[in-house]
């Protein structure tokens, strides 16, 4: 018994060390790749994003504001937690497919698909109780005294009633598409 153990011990050590190293490289590489696709520069590397939605976002408070805090594309469009992030990333691979097909490669094509695309995103945020908004905007941390009259009037009632951010705050980082009211209905948004 001792004899066998003595023979395989160095082998075992090498194997463990090697798999540990391989694990670091593979997992690190995977994570690195994932993070590389989770970056604003990656998002706007295709003109579909850069020329349309990114230009609109640049005019909004999430891009430029008093304190200089910025929410970039993945802050709103990709969940932070690992599991949901993986699911979202796999779903987003269809965007590569449509990039190759050229589904929205002209402003006209984009406008034609825009309501559909926006409605999908509203549905996603409605289903997750506006998870990505709440990563930064937490009800619990809101000081109603500091808010404007209209914000207090709406927030103090509607949050109690179980409404979620996207119910009212749609079209804030990108412009609303034509027919947005129909899209909001389809996504199940409760605007009032």
């Amino acid at each position, binding site marked *: 018994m001792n004899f066998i153990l003595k023979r395989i011990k160095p082998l075992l050590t090498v194997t463990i060390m090697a798999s540990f190293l391989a694990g670091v490289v593979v997992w690190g590489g995977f994570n690195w790749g994932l993070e590389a696709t989770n970056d604003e520069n990656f998002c706007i590397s295709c003109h579909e994003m850069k020329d349309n939605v990114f230009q609109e976002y640049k005019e*909004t*408070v999430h891009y430029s504001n008093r304190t200089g805090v910025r929410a970039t594309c993945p802050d709103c469009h990709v969940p932070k937690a690992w599991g949901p992030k993986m699911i979202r990333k796999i779903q987003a691979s269809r965007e590569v497919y449509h990039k190759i097909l050229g589904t929205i490669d002209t402003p006209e094509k984009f406008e034609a698909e825009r309501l559909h695309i926006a409605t999908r995103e509203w549905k996603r945020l409605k289903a997750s109780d506006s998870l990505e908004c709440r990563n930064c905007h937490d009800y619990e941390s809101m000081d109603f005294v500091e808010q*404007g*009259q*209209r*914000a207090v*009037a709406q927030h103090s009632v509607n949050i109690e009633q179980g409404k979620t951010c996207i119910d009212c705050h749609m*079209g*804030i980082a990108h*412009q*609303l*598409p*034509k*027919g*947005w009211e129909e899209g909001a209905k389809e996504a199940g948004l409760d*605007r*009032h």
Partner: protein
Amino acid sequence: MKTLFITLLMAFSSMLFAEESIDSLRGSHDLESMSQDATVKKMAKDGDPIERNYVQQPPLIPHSIKGYRVNLNANKCMSCHSWKNYKAAGATKISQTHFEDRDGNALAEVSSRRYFCQQCHVPQANAKPLVGNNFKPLSAISDK
């Protein structure tokens, strides 16, 4: 000869007025010194409706409208001020005069010539009038 005369006159008059300042209703300004930069005005935050100063005045916007967009696809103002939404939002509803075309025909929707709210309705900043005046609203619409 005539050209020379005019040139001389211009040169002479510019020498004469070089040190002058300009007087206007906004005060006197020295032409030689740099004018002062205007401070950036902050838009007023939410407030109660602002009284009108005269009968036909389009009501002023008593709240911030930063980021509110009015374009072909959407009109942010209407999400509170339309007849459909004003009650739930607790907002002032848009006037019936906005549902008429220029010939006075009644329309089912807001007239396209009334669509761009900010052509008439404007938000307020804490800016003092550049020139003082003693304008008072009519007693019929204000207690001021």
